[in-house]
């Protein structure tokens, strides 16, 4: 039997014990989430619970935007209308030509017994908010797994690739923008078809083409598009333009900085793309896949 002080001032479990318990629990959650990705069901549950509150709290901002739009003058609206009409008139012939080229391409591919290009399903989405997290740049969009959005889907705007869906909730999804440090995308230089992988750059708001030999044929001003080798991005979508190339005799790789084409930051409407059929065979086993990704992509 234990003789302790009488419970006159009993305050329950001591603060230190509570601290130890909760910080251990939090550290455990962090480690599991960072290393194993096993907590997605809990996260989705919390996300669904939080969803009505989040949507309700977007209302004041949306109301402000709507009010300011309502107050927009007729002159600015008619100007915008004029501009849009001009844009669409400029694009219509290109679109018609595109249709014709597409059928021609399909026919040629069939003649050569090549596989047909997989179709792309698109979905117009709206950016709900940018999370305040200052360690990663993400966007939250208003479509989720119930609308068919899957993790890995590319997200583009009218100018180029914006990012990739990295986490899907039932009603919303998180998009990690292209310029994030650990985000990578297989690309191709339009001028000569040189394939490379673009990673988020060290400077904010830039991309970097890594693993390009120091004597690679890249120069500033080159357009960079997706190569479609990963089976996630459709080929030929603009990624950016090469801003500058630094060749250092000490390094065996060139340092290629790319300015992204897609509006990363201020965009309201985006398009989520989804390849209708996976164009690639299932990935090879672990031992075969242990090669560096850049080398693998140039081989294929």
């Amino acid at each position, binding site marked *: 039997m234990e003789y302790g002080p009488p419970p006159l001032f009993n305050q329950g479990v001591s603060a230190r014990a509570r601290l130890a318990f909760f910080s251990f629990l*939090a550290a455990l*959650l962090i480690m599991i*989430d960072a290393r194993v990705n096993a907590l997605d069901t809990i996260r989705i549950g919390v996300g669904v619970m939080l969803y009505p509150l*989040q949507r309700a709290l977007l209302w004041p901002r949306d109301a402000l935007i709507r009010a300011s739009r309502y107050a927009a003058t007729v002159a600015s609206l008619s100007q915008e209308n004029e501009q849009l009409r001009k844009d669409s008139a400029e694009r219509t012939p290109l679109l018609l030509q595109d249709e014709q080229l597409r059928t021609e391409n399909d026919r040629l591919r069939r003649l050569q017994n090549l596989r047909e290009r997989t179709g792309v399903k698109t979905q117009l989405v709206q950016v709900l908010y940018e*999370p*305040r997290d200052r360690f990663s740049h993400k966007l*939250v969009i208003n479509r989720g797994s119930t609308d068919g959005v899957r993790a890995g889907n590319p997200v583009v705007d009218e100018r180029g690739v914006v990012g990739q869906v990295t986490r899907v909730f039932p009603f919303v999804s998180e998009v990690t923008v292209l310029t994030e440090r650990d985000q990578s995308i297989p690309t191709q230089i339009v001028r000569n078809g040189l394939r490379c992988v673009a990673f988020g750059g060290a400077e904010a708001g830039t991309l970097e083409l890594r693993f390009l030999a120091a004597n690679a044929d890249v120069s500033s001003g080159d357009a960079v598009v997706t190569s479609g080798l990963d089976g996630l991005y459709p080929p030929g979508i603009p990624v950016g333009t090469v801003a500058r190339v630094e060749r250092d005799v000490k390094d065996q790789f060139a340092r290629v900085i790319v300015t992204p084409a897609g509006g990363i930051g201020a965009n309201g409407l985006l398009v989520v793309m989804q390849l209708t059929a996976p164009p690639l065979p299932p990935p090879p086993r672990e031992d075969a896949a242990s090669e560096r990704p850049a080398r693998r992509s140039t081989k294929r």
Partner: protein
Amino acid sequence: MRFWRLRRANGDSATAVPLTVTRTQPPKQVLRPVSPVFIWTTLAGSLALDLLPWGRTPLVPDFLALALVFWNIQQPRRVGMGAAFLFGLLIDVHDGALFGEHALAYTLLSYGAITLHRRILWFPVLGQSLYVLPLLLIAQLVSAAVRLWAGSASADWWIGLIQSGIGALLWPVVTWLLLAPQRRPMRDETRPL
């Protein structure tokens, strides 16, 4: 304030001698009891303020952290580390951060506030905000350290420091607002406390 020395039993001092006491603290009112509904409403309200679409504006403080520190200092037996932990998980999901990152930060914040609450309450409001500043800074540094461990460095780490500073500057306002329902409506000088 004056205290009157009690008349001695043998009555050799016929008149009471006034004795002045220098005051080290401003006068304090005894507050009325707090309503739990108000505590949880304000915590939910500060969560809502954090969930507003602020985007990446750097000057917005973490309202939820402020409210948690406030109630941990004022009512450490009602709002504890468990509440801080759960609110942290909600913020983690909303921000798309690592699951448990804000939970850990708020737990430490809450522990600091609970252990220091008797000392902090001794100070006037401006002195209190000097105590609140390092608490908020520690919470920011913890989440920065977690992200560094997970491998995402950011050039914007100093934003956390600014947010903590603004949070500490807001402390008098927070105190004034959140203690308002506990103050007595009429200032009565004849009350002893």
